């Protein structure tokens, strides 16, 4: 199966993407993740102002079949959430890198943590390794 993995983003091994934009980052789930989940029917997001640590679950996306945690790729304070997802969670399937963004974060340790993230090539390799494990 082919997955869209834009070159200008960074990725966590847990399948979230990060777009760095000045002192704020935008976070969502990858095309690989949304395809693996199937039809997303429910999303739960944190409140604005909440402080997250890298690796901490910040929300939940649910398909017909299962609930999956979504993890913070970086530490920081939530500065915005995509409230439209609460009513239209299927946007996570249709436009995971655009309208399907999940939250914005003011990272507290971007320099220290961003080298933990994968570039598009490394993330593609990671998804292929995961797929072949199956």
């Amino acid at each position, binding site marked *: *199966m082919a997955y869209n993995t834009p070159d200008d983003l960074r990725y966590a091994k847990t399948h979230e993407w990060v777009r760095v934009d000045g002192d704020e980052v935008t976070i969502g789930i990858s095309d690989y993740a949304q395809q*693996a989940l*199937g*039809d997303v*029917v*429910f999303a739960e997001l944190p409140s604005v102002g909440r402080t997250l640590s890298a690796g901490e679950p910040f929300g*939940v996306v*649910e*398909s*017909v*079949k*299962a*609930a999956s945690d979504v993890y913070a790729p970086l530490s920081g304070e939530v500065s915005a959430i995509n409230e439209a997802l*609460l009513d239209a969670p299927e946007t996570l399937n249709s436009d995971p890198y655009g309208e399907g963004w999940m939250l914005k974060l003011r990272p507290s340790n971007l320099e220290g943590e961003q080298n933990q993230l994968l570039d598009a090539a490394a993330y593609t390799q990671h998804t292929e390794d995961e797929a072949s494990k*199956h």
Partner: protein
Amino acid sequence: MKRTPLYDRHVAMGAKTVEFGGWDMPVQYTGIIEEHQATRNAAGLFDISHMGQINVYGPDALRFLQHIATQDVATIAEGLANYALLCYPDGGIVDDIFIYHLPHCYLVVVNASNVDKDFGWMQEHSQGFNVQLENISAATTMLALQGPKAEAILDRVTDVDVTKLWFHGVVEGVLCGDVPAIIARTGYTGEDGFELFFENAYAERVWNSLLQEGQADGLKPIGLGARDSLRFEPKLALYGHEISDQINPYEAGLGWVVKLDKGEFIGREALQRIKAEGPRRKLVGLEMIGRGIARQGYPVATPEGETVGEVTSGMPAPTLGKNLALALVRADLAKLGTELDVVVRNKPVRAVVVKTPFYQSRYKK
């Protein structure tokens, strides 16, 4: 992990696979909701070869099945099939099964994860009965063709006049010109439909022929994801969810499968007592009022916070468009309209007891 003879075919068709009962099975092809609607509105084809099949032969076959099953097997005339339970002496459930009465034997279909357990249970309790038990699971392909278009599609690929096959009828026939098969009007979706049994060697040919034959009718291959949502809406029990060794038939709402007056069978005494005393727990339908989806294992509590049960199955029901659940709760809280909380990730989310089945089965009777 075990694979059915159609595994490579599923992968080639783009299926995602998942472990289920020790089998690597297709969970979805294009999407659970789309596959669910295709089955409700047109037709779906399911590879369910992971299910187990055990033939019961011999002069004591009926007497033996009466001994191990809760159903009155004597009422299953040749050419018919029916649902039944195997129970432990304490009334807990070994498995739920389907018994098909064929000309030369009874065919018992059991759950994938329980084949060895059930076959062992049957062998153990066959002492003193003149029966032969044959586990044909590994050699048998089982397909389900379900949905309002199933009859028309199947009718074009078999010599059997399936339009005359009764609900729960079973017959031996030929598929695709030369494939000896057992054809039954049974299923697990709440729709009219059929289940087909034949030897593995024919699996790919029958699968491909049916899909091709049904293409114009909207027939789609269906994975286990939609199989689960399709059985959930009409409240068809799933082993490991609504039934287990810790749940008795009266709690599971399956008292209608227990024929206490048919004579002796394993579990009868315990079940008589449970029925007389009334079950302590009951399986109820819940509709979520608050925002949240109930899942198996989530606690159910009163609005005051007292834990009173557990969700056995829950999901956003595709046909109903609601977040629904089946839950085993304290019997006094089973009344329609009772407000309860489902504890979703440590947060109570309000729900209300609603009528089941959520979806009225559309069998052709």
